[in-house]
């Protein structure tokens, strides 16, 4: 649980809740600078993170409010462009999946930062213009009233086999989103395409598709289907907390192909609240931030942090291979279209 | 069979009593005209018969079928009553052309194809609107619209026709022509017709029977000749054009004559008994009524023949081209006399205000109307004594 506001009382440290004393010193400086500049809010464009995170941050740094506005990539760019043209800057932070954030960093929307925490290069964007504090994973949920989690499918091949026909529910890739992206990643590069050949066809053949992520969990929790595929782990956490008889099964141990995405933030050029914005970005990498992230269902990216809910560490999982950041910006697009078209969209 | 029987018809609009217990009948094939003041309930009566208005109470039968009976909770839908109606407000459909409007009732009655077209064209020709067949009905002139409304009602030849002032906006020659056509169709199809008009001549021409209404009640019913010659009360008399009504007292009643005193004009007169429109006894208060066109203005009192002679002074003369209209003061009474062109040319008199003249009316052109019927005890009012003018 987060420490009491203001840390241990001497005003400069946080009792090791965030990191080393030097790091905490830096946090405190940033916090003071933000308050001194009257930066009492951070405006972020992107999907808001779990509430626990916001609460923890707010408790740690009172007086700074986080305002998230959920925007699609196109919308965000249009809005930022407008802010740039009018000089009326509103946004401090852009928050999104990997490729949009990388492409923003490449296009010069983001400020270069020097992370307080020792974030590995792998998780900083180009020129250190973005941080990727966590990774989201997608896996199976099973209804424990209907089947034993042990008996759940162990690989994509098994999942899409006729054996499970009618028992698996998944969000339809036809509406885009992570599902479409999963199968796009299975198409490229060539090795992936070979490795996962036939999966997409099998899905279409044997898996029931629904419109929304939330419905997958709902259907499984309700017991209409015993297995739900590509369930978003943080949602699972929330749902299980409500007492639903479900279990998360992760990872696929045979054949790999476990779906993951990394999420990032960047500090917008000319952000009106640069200190507060950066504070939020840095805090997400702090011990406290990473811990809360893990509790909320994400894999923290700082080295040495445990995975969420007792899942194995990220390094041990056979993840679906993804193209390098800068290549990914443009390479997946056509495949996503293809997947969507394949599923009738 | 499409006689009409209305009994005890009562219609209220909220508090307002539009019709109070009217009885009305029309025999099969009869042409009945309703006459009455503006707002007396003519339209409402027709609408009740048509089924467009639900009476407050009463009984209506068309032919053998009871179409409305408040006691027995019968209320037949309008389209089942097989009636046609010309609406006073035309009620033309803005979305249809003239021809479509006229074809509409035929379509509804399953007359189709050539026959329908032929009938529609005939009726349009009758009302002189053939040229306008393709125009939207509501873009026509007022009179043309009225004719469309009429054509629409006539075309389907219903057994019972209800006409609500169907010719009020037509010019006289067209009106005469269409009126004759209505009569022809009425006779030809054996339709029963109920007709509302304010034009007395039209009523005379068309009707088998005329019914005079006053504020929601039927006042008198009879053949045109009866109504026009022998109105049984003051209201009807005024309404059918007896411009001159003089209060009088019966002094004595003989076998074939009645002696009267007209106090306002200060004269005594003896009129044939046949002029009385109701039973009379000595002492009765009556009205002596005559039309302005039936009186003549002469400079010298003539003798011979029973006649009403009143000395008077010309108050005003209006020269109306084909007719002169005099207003004459005779004692306390004020009279109206119309002089035809021929009469005008026939005699030379001083036709100007202030001239002393005599007004003469042939005895049998007068009507003696019993009064005080409605309120028998009431003393004659001031205006009545003074000899009122319409």
């Amino acid at each position, binding site marked *: 649980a987060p420490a009491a506001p203001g840390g241990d009382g001497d005003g400069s440290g946080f009792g090791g809740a965030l990191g080393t004393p030097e790091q905490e010193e830096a946090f405190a400086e940033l916090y003071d600078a933000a308050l001194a500049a009257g930066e009492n809010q951070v405006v972020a464009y992107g999907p808001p993170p779990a509430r626990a995170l916001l609460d923890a941050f707010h408790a740690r740094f009172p007086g700074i409010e986080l*305002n998230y506005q959920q925007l699609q990539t*196109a919308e965000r760019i249009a809005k930022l462009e407008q802010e740039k043209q009018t000089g009326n800057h509103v946004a401090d932070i852009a928050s999104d999946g990997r490729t949009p954030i990388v492409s923003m960093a490449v296009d010069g929307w983001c400020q270069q930062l020097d992370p307080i925490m020792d974030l590995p290069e792998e998780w900083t964007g180009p020129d250190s213009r973005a941080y990727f504090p966590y990774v989201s994973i997608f896996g199976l949920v099973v209804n424990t009233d209907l089947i034993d989690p042990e008996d759940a499918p162990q690989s994509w091949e098994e999942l899409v086999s006729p054996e499970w026909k009618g028992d698996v529910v998944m969000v339809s890739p036809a509406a885009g989103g992570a599902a*479409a992206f999963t199968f796009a990643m299975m198409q490229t590069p060539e090795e992936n395409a070979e490795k996962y050949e036939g999966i997409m066809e099998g899905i279409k053949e044997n898996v029931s598709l629904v419109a929304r992520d939330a419905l997958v969990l709902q259907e499984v929790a309700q017991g209409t289907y015993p297995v739900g595929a590509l369930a978003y782990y943080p949602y699972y956490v929330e749902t299980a907390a409500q007492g639903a008889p479900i279990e998360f099964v992760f990872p696929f141990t045979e054949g790999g192909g476990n779906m993951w995405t990394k999420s990032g933030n960047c500090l917008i050029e000319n952000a009106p609240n640069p200190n507060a914005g950066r504070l939020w970005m840095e805090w997400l990498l702090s011990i406290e931030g990473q811990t809360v992230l893990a509790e909320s269902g994400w894999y923290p990216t700082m080295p040495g942090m445990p995975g969420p809910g007792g899942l194995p560490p990220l390094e041990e999982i056979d993840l679906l291979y993804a193209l390098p950041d800068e290549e990914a910006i443009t390479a997946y697009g056509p495949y996503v279209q293809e997947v*969507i078209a394949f599923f009738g969209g | 069979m499409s006689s009409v029987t209305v009994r005890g018809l009562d219609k209220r609009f909220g508090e307002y009593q539009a019709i109070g217990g009217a009885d009305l009948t029309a025999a099969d094939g009869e042409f009945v005209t309703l006459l009455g003041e503006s707002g007396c309930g003519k339209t409402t009566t027709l609408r009740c018969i048509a089924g467009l208005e639900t009476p407050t109470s009463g009984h209506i039968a068309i032919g053998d079928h009871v179409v409305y009976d408040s006691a027995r909770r019968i209320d037949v839908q309008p*389209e089942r009553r097989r009636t*046609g109606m010309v609406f*006073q407000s035309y009620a033309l459909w803005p979305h249809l052309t003239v021809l479509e409007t006229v074809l509409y009732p035929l379509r509804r009655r399953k007359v189709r194809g050539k026959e329908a077209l032929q009938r529609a064209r005939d009726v349009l020709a009758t009302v002189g609107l053939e040229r306008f067949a393709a125009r939207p009905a509501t873009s026509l002139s007022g009179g043309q619209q009225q004719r469309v409304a009429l054509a629409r009602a006539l075309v389907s030849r219903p057994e019972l026709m209800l006409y609500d002032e169907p010719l009020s906006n037509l010019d006289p020659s067209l009106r005469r022509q269409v009126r004759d056509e209505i009569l022809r169709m009425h006779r030809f199809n054996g339709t029963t017709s109920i007709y509302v008009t304010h034009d007395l001549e039209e009523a005379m021409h068309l009707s088998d029977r005329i019914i005079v209404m006053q504020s929601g009640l039927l006042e008198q019913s009879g053949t045109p000749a009866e109504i026009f010659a022998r109105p049984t009360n003051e209201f009807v008399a005024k309404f059918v054009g007896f411009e001159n009504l003089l209060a009088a007292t019966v002094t004595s009643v003989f076998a074939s004559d009645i002696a009267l005193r007209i106090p306002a004009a200060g004269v005594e007169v003896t009129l044939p008994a046949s002029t009385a429109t109701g039973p009379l006894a000595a002492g009765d208060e009556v009205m002596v009524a005559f039309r302005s066109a039936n009186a003549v203005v002469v400079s010298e009192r003539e003798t011979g023949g029973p006649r009403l002679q009143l000395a008077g002074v010309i108050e005003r003369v209006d020269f109306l081209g084909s007719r002169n209209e005099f207003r004459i003061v005779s004692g306390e009474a004020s009279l109206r006399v119309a002089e035809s062109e021929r009469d005008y040319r026939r005699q030379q008199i001083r036709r100007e205000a202030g001239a002393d003249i005599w007004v003469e009316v042939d005895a049998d052109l007068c009507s003696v109307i019993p009064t005080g019927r409605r309120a028998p005890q009431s003393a004659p009012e001031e205006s009545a004594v003074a000899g009122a003018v319409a």
Partner: protein
Amino acid sequence: MSAISPEWRGERLFGKILLALALVVLFVLFIWPPVMMATAAFRVGNLAGQGEWSIGPFLDTLARESTWRVSLNSIILSAASSLGALAIGTFLAWVAVRTTTPLRRWMTPAMAVILVIPSLFYGLGWYLVVNGNAAPVNILLREWFGITGSPLGSGWPIMLFVVIGFVVPVGYLFMVGPMARMDAALDDAARMSGASRGNAFFTVTLPLLRPTMFGVFVLMTSYGFSAFELPLLFGIQADINVFSTAVYTTLTAQEAVPNYAGASTLSLILMALVIALVLVRSRILGGRRFSTITGKGFRPDPKNYGRIQWLFLATFIAVVCWAGVIPLLQMILGSFQPMFGVSLGFTTANYENVLRNPRTGSLIGFTLVLAAVGGFIAASVALVMSHLATHGGGLLRAVTGTVSWAPVAIPGVLVGLALITAYLPIPGLRNLIGTPLMLLLGFIVVVTPIATRAVEGGVLQISSELEESARISGASRYVTFFTVVVPLVLPSFLAGWFIAGIGIAGNLSLPVLLSSPTMQTVAVQAYDSYRQGYASEAAALFLLLMLAVAVVGAVASAAVWGGARLLKRIRISRIERAITMKGSAAYV
């Protein structure tokens, strides 16, 4: 022989300048965004309508088979559902105002409340009724026929059923105003010509409403193209994808760089459809107006149709259940569940969470004010434009016609983007972006076509002679407008205001783009919550909004109704006093 007075000439010049100015404003606000969107189909850049010219994405998009498939699906879905909803809505409107069916006075309020249900929860509500093992429909099927699974859970029939149910209240509210203003004599004349009740309805009543019905049909069909949530919920399992999903996925599929050109190309299809429909409509109507409010014996009284009215009532109740009660009950139920639609017991935590949030109150307040003000202005703009269109020459009619249709050609998913990219280069507007004022402006642009459809029918019904008699009585054009046109068109105006207001309250894309992050509406907030997995909380928030709308609506209509009655009483008694008591009590 005095020439025309200089004062008069001045007015004319001033009027012309004013007109020119108005035309420019209208062009920038209403026509520029769709034009920009159309050109964006041929440009590749990081902002819609900017960057390099290229015909590539355009050709690519059109070459895709799926483009045409989803368009066809959408055409079928939107045309069929608009037709169905319009038919049912028109019929119910007729029942409500032209018959003496019991409870008819409750029909409009009921439909108004139903209209407030957001499509998301309407859809989820029905989804839960027909999908899953616990769904009532499936339980019945299992018990009675032994059919398992969710055979009725998706596919065309259920999709049409659900979509029609969703738009029935819209159809109803569009039609009820014009329906109320029909001279009963027109109907009477049909009955006297031998038409039965049904006959008269189909041959006179309906054709007279053609101008309104065609307009509403075109509008509903176009908006059917923006249907997102419902086709997604009920179509995707059956592989039925629709246009709006395609626009969305085209725009976002590339992830990093939005594919504006592809999305704009798709929207050209909608634009073509709208243009075609509008042309067909004006062809069929040929600029005719069917005046049903005349100055001669105009009596719009309802009629008693006998016992069949009980059938009407039953139909009404069935429709209310279909369109309102069932999804609403699910929504209420869901708002008390820890997880929406999953039976894990009940909790008030969702309400507590929502109420604990200090911003909930201002959120609801802001939404209500925005909807009320925006709806009012849109309805007013619609009224003025419709009135001008019926009176002005061909040019004015063309301009107002275009203005009232142009925004419809932008797919709902793109509306926000289209407006922001169109207004961005325009000096005055650019600075407004991000302020509530801009949001209001954007909403007015977006909902004016809706309000216009509701209002124009009412305006077309007023016989021009009623205005003429006012002019002859010495009233200027403006005074005539306020003393004759406005009172007569009021039912349609109120309907337009309400529908436009609901359109504003339910819009998701404009507040996000045109306003600041702290100025949001309930719909945006609720939808965000839903997307984060807090569906129950979203339901709770929306129910609170509905409650607020109902309370405000009830209070307002009670006030209006009571006020109107009072006013009428005062009017009548004043008149009576004025007439009876000699020379006393001035009538003001």
